[in-house]
Every structure is written in C-alpha cells, then in structure tokens.
C-alpha cells in the first residue's frame, strides 16, 4: 500500500457522475493495490462502499447544491494514507444543514432520502463544514469492520477539518432544523450561493459522457504524499 493524493475539479452536474465515479473507483484500486492492479478485478467491499458513499455525496451537490442550468465546480481530493482513505469534496453550492436530515425508516421501504444514511453507514467518519466553500470529508479506515453496530451508532470522532478554523459538523449530529428555508428531506437550503468561476484543471474538458478521454482531459494531479 502506498500513500498518495489524487485531485480533480469537475462541474457539479449529474452528467459528470459516471466519469467521476470511475475516477474514484480507479483511484481507490490504484492506490490500494498498486500500479499493477488488474483493471478487470472484481470490486472489493471496501471499494464498493467508498464509491457508494462518494456517489451519494456527488448526487447531493449536483441535485441540491447547484442549479442544473448553471452548475459550479466541485473539487475532489482523494488521499490514501497507511490506514485510511479520505475523500474531500469542496463546492460553492447551497449550504447543507446536517442537523435537519431525518434518518430513513427502512421498515417503511423509503423511495428517497437514503443518501446520507448510505454515506454514514459505509464511511467511518463524515464531516461537513458549511461554506462557502462547503467542505465534505469522507473517511474510511482500511481495517474497519463493517458491522451493524457501527452503522446504527452516531459518529464520534473529531469534527474539525484540517487547516481551517471554521466549525464543522458531523452528519448525524443533533442540531436545529433547516435554516433559511429548505428541503427537510435533503437538508439543503433554498438560498443559492453564487458559484465561483474557476477554470477546469487542464482546461478543454467539453464532453462529460464518460469516454475514457474525459478523465485525461481534466488532468488529475497525482503525487506522492508523506505520512502524517
């Protein structure tokens, strides 16, 4: 296992979901198994859970955070340390209120409102810091056992993001309701933040339909990182 960091920036639009998930999947595989990883190998439970959680996070930004007609950018940073995977997402969309989200009642067979539950269940720590920019950190420990006990308990570790003094919230933490009006199911507020105009890394990325070249077009930076 090597330590590594991969980062890319894409529009926060659902048309980018597939290429971004492929990117996250391959990054997990590359970093965890090494450069000679078999691209046809079956996904491990770790990969499946991390990709599931990230996919829900990206959905939330694309569907609730940004307006589909004029999506802003999402920066995704994947960091693999010796004992954990950390996926950090930064966006300038609507602010999210973790305290307003009601856990789904699975006995009722819900048809929506399961995204946060999936994130919390499959990751060991989910920390959200309202912005702008909004920051979401998803952390998954390599050796973490997937147990029903963990899934049913609130997350308990540090609620501060590194390098920033503003308060952060862990999803699932008790808190007030939706402020400024908003969606009680999703927890996103109606008031939109003005998206910042930033260029794509590498520029020239025009086709988000999942072709192999799209991932190369955004030129993700790959670098070795020391252990912290």
């Amino acid at each position, binding site marked *: 296992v090597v330590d590594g960091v991969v980062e890319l920036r894409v529009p926060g639009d659902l048309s980018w979901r597939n290429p971004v998930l492929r990117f996250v999947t391959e990054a997990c595989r590359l970093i965890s198994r090494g450069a000679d990883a078999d691209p046809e190998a079956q996904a491990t439970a770790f990969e499946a*859970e991390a990709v599931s959680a990230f996919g829900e996070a990206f959905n939330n930004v694309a569907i609730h955070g940004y307006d589909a007609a004029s999506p802003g950018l999402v920066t995704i940073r994947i960091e693999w340390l010796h004992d954990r995977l950390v996926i950090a997402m930064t966006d300038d969309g609507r602010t999210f209120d973790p305290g307003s989200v009601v856990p789904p009642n699975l006995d009722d067979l819900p*048809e929506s409102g*399961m995204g946060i539950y999936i994130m919390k269940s499959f990751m060991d720590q989910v920390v959200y810091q309202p912005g702008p920019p909004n920051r979401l950190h998803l952390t998954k420990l390599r050796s973490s056992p997937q147990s029903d006990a963990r899934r049913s308990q609130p997350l308990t570790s540090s609620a501060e993001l590194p390098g920033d003094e503003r308060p952060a919230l862990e999803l699932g933490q008790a808190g007030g309701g939706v402020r400024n009006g908003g969606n009680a199911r999703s927890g996103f507020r109606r008031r939109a933040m003005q998206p910042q105009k930033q260029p794509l890394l590498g520029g020239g990325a025009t086709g988000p339909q999942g072709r192999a070249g799209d991932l190369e077009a955004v030129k993700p930076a790959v670098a070795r990182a020391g252990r912290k």
Partner: protein
Amino acid sequence: MTHTRTDEGEETTLRIEGTLDAVTAPELRSVVDDLVSEQRRGVTLDLSSLRLIDSSGVGLIVALFKRVKANGGQVRIVGLRDQPRAIFRLLRLDRVFPGGY
C-alpha cells in the same frame, strides 16, 4: 444502462445492465410505468449484469415493488452481486427480495 424486457404469459423479466443511478433511473421510469399499467402479475428483475446502483436506482426498484404489489403481483430479484448487493443489504431490502442473494 441498458435494459431488456421479456414477457412470457403473465411473467415479465426485466434485465438491467450497467449503472442504475440518478442519471439513468429516469430513463427506466417509463418501463416501470408500463409494467404497472399493464398489471403484470409477476416481474423478475435480473440484476446479474448491474454493476452500480445508488439511492435513486433503489428508489425506483422499491417504487416498482410497491406498485406491482398493490396490483396483487410480485417482484423478484435474481443475480444481485457486488456493489448493488452491498446497498441492498445495507438498506435491508433482503427482507423484501429474499431470492436475490
């Protein structure tokens, strides 16, 4: 995502391949509407080639289950594996679709 519908008498098999998520689930909604409006009594979802699903895709399958059941029919799942299986187990849908595992 691609899908194939096969009818045999009152039974329908719907095979879904690829990814069923917030992007592709809307494409399949008309198929679900057709199955419900035609009051198909037995619907089998073949998910053996489903690679990835998210909460939107799950929501569509749950909606299909509820609506077919309301018509007196039944929805079964076969071939569930990998990431979709992890999602179904997490959401305790194995209670509803016991044959999928």
